[in-house]
């Protein structure tokens, strides 16, 4: 089974408005796909559908060789999704937050992995502070530490650059390309201009239900 997510004839209508129609999209190992479009064009909805959160769509989703609905747990075990909200409890410390995420995947996880991933996002020294005491950008980094915490092939990121400073943005962008280079896949939306457009597949959602794959 390969880590390949495929959408065929995907259409989504919400409250009588067609967001997109007959969208065909595949994300395989080594691919970075960027979903573009104006506000309200359905980027977040598309990401939610493709991450298995939202099943009010027409069409077919496949993970590897099987329909996604049938291998849901295997799919989710290979996915990291970061949405608009961080998913981080501010009353807990960064380490406690990460331990919870390790446990959600069904593993007890090691302290070393947690410390390493916090180090990777530049949060060494903040491990044992309640997240509430960190800045918005640092809170966001705690969420990003999940990318390092459990190595998973498919990253679905909704506006990952929000609230992060310039050096952080550059480092994250580089990290995304590294992930792709070693056979991972990334699906993201962002208003931020990526420095290197090389090897990026783009999906443009329009105001109407039209779309283009570039």
């Amino acid at each position, binding site marked *: 089974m390969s880590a390949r997510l495929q959408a065929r004839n995907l259409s989504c209508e919400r409250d009588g408005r067609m967001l997109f129609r007959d969208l065909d999209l595949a994300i395989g190992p080594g691919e970075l796909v960027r979903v573009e479009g104006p506000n309200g064009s359905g980027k977040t909805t598309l990401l939610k559908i493709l991450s298995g959160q939202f099943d009010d769509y027409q069409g077919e989703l496949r993970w590897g060789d099987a329909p996604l609905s049938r291998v849901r747990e295997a799919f989710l075990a290979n996915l990291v999704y970061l949405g608009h909200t961080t*998913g981080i409890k501010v009353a807990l410390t960064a380490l406690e937050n990460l331990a919870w995420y390790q446990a959600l*995947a069904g593993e007890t996880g090691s302290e070393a992995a947690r410390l390493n991933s916090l180090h990777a996002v530049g949060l060494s020294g903040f491990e044992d502070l309640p997240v509430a005491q960190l800045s918005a950008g640092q809170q966001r980094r705690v969420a990003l530490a999940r990318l390092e915490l459990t190595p998973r092939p498919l990253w679905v990121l909704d506006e990952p650059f929000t609230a992060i400073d310039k050096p952080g943005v550059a480092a994250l962008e580089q990290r995304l390309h590294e992930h792709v280079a070693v056979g991972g896949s990334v699906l993201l939306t962002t208003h931020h201009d990526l420095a290197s457009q090389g090897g990026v597949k783009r999906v443009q959602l329009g105001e109407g239900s039209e779309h283009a794959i570039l």
Partner: protein
Amino acid sequence: MPSSDKGASSAVEMVEPRGGLGVAMAAIFKRDLILAARRRSDILNPLAFFALVITLFPLGISPQQALLATIAPGLLWVAALLATLLSLDALFRADFDDGSLEQLLLAPQPLSALVLGKVAVHWLMTGLPLALMAPLLGLLLALPGESYLVLSLSLALGSVSLSLIGAIGAALTVGLSRGGVLLSLLVLPLNIPVLIFGTGAVQAAIIGNPVGPHLAILGALCCGALMLAPFAIAASLRISING
């Protein structure tokens, strides 16, 4: 953000689902307990509300012990029901706001089982304290002596169902900005059977009838809720997260 050299150099492998439902449920249970311990007022508020409502009744009706004693089982149960309701709105609210609810839905585990962890903490932090506190308030209402143990037992058992059924309502309304009043409209009618058999048990104890049957029915309601509610809660959360 400096990238870790180690993570980037090794190729990404497919991950097989590990199972580990027990680990995940224990983690949710533990996390919610820690959060509750760090915000103690959330535990105390329903208890204070319970005591306050019970204080209002003698003031609103009459201080006569005989009259209070006859209505005490009902009053205690209704007040406990309302106190539980008060705490329900917060059950998923914080998780919804900070996005950890969304992540819970994305865990490679059955959601209906995971939410049981959260409901268990809710019961431990609301239903159980209410049940333990009720005898004290029973004293204020001149509740006859034989029924104190049954009052606590029936509340402890009944509040499991209240938490489970209430969690469905909380899950349905968590995405709404003003879900509180609506939550009571959804949940209270569904809680009526629990109320009937809960007060029934206490009344039976007072008049010296066997309380076994009432407690057995409360237990049956609890089992039914345990079997069915998790699926309804999970389905409702999936709807609310996309509201």
